[in-house]
């Protein structure tokens, strides 16, 4: 499973979501799931995310909104613009943090990190992505 937490919708985040959505589609047999949580209280975000999903044809990755604090137990820093966690069987394997936006190199690192969860996801049956 790929969990992405962001403070705002940036060009880098959009590119990251596209890359992860493609990876989720390409690895659907491994039940690789993914979601994005934009942590904001901006009322316009819902419409913006709907438009983003429509424009970029995001089908596999679920786009969500949470409060600016985010889920407390996920220990997200207020100074992190984008935090990505890769986990399988509810256990985190990789963590990527970017203070502002994420660039192409950062996206490559996240995509490369998927290898750390895909083999286990493939072995795991119905809940392989969890």
């Amino acid at each position, binding site marked *: *499973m790929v*969990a992405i*937490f962001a403070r705002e919708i940036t060009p880098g985040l959009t590119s990251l979501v596209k890359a992860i959505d493609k990876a989720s589609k390409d690895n659907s047999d491994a039940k690789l*799931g993914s*979601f994005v*949580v934009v942590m904001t209280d901006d009322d316009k975000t*819902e419409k913006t*995310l*709907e438009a983003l*999903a429509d424009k970029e044809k*995001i089908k596999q990755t*679920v*786009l*969500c*909104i*949470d409060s600016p604090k985010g*889920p407390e*137990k*996920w*220990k*997200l*820093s207020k*100074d*992190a613009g984008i*935090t*990505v*966690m890769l*986990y399988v069987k*509810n*256990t*985190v*394997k*990789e*963590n990527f*943090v970017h*203070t502002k936006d994420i660039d192409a190199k950062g996206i490559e690192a996240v995509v490369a990190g998927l290898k750390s969860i895909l083999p286990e996801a493939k072995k795991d049956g119905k809940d392989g992505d*969890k």
Partner: protein
Amino acid sequence: MIRILLSVVAAGLLAAAAQSDEIKSGLQAGDKVSPFNPLNVTGSSAGEKRCQV
């Protein structure tokens, strides 16, 4: 001369600090994820507050 040297050292220290601005955010390798219920904007539960974990 000493002032110049101190300035150079201070600038070096500041540059080093700027490069090591890595922050810790989110759960780390080995940590267990916890359920939460964000508003789903897309997906099968669009419009609902539903856990994706």
